């Protein structure tokens, strides 16, 4: 079973609209990372969350980690074509595998229509 579930799997939004991507774990997360990937390229680091209730922002992207540290959301405000790509969450899950190794979700494919 997938230890990190991302939803939705894909998303098409009109330019200027807001959107939210979710990442859920059945176990407590030690650290939660958000990456962006464009087709044929590597992962670009966006943000890292570690404390329950933590929220970070970079430009128009905001990520939150819930108090129980089992779910994170990534919110994009006023989406632009440059936001298009695959968003991946990766986490070090307490009690799941070797600590220090990230487990990734399957990703959310975002398309932004001009």
């Amino acid at each position, binding site marked *: 079973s997938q230890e990190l579930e991302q939803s939705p799997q894909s998303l098409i939004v009109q330019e200027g609209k807001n959107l939210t991507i979710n990442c859920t774990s059945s176990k407590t997360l030690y650290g939660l990372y958000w990456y962006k990937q464009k087709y044929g390229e590597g992962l*670009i680091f966006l943000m890292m969350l570690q404390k329950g209730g933590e929220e970070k922002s970079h430009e128009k992207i905001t990520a939150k980690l819930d108090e129980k540290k089992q779910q994170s959301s990534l919110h994009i405000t006023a989406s632009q074509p440059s936001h298009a790509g695959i968003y991946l969450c990766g986490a070090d899950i307490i009690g799941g595998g070797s600590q*220090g190794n990230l487990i990734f979700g399957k990703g959310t494919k975002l398309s932004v229509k001009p």
Partner: protein
Amino acid sequence: EAGVVQSPRYKIIEKKQPVAFWCNPISGHNTLYWYLQNLGQGPELLIRYENEEAVDDSQLPKDRFSAERLKGVDSTLKIQPAELGDSAVYLCASSRVQFSTQYFGPGTRLTVL
């Protein structure tokens, strides 16, 4: 600061042939990772190095895959012989130390015919 460098970017080989991928991590990063990413999936760890020591290779198919990180800097991942199912993107990442943020290279897209 230069990012993680990988080569080649693309490789097409016939099954049963050997193939090797090279990775140069960010300068000063002690931890190096090799990941496998299949289409529509997230990356899956193959092996993690702390300096020159492979500290987690539990997911590496050792019958055909091998890796080395001589002198604790560059690393090479080899497949011999390659199978059709090995077609995927092979990603290298590095972090300053264990538990710190991982930075990824552009990956090598392998196609096995």
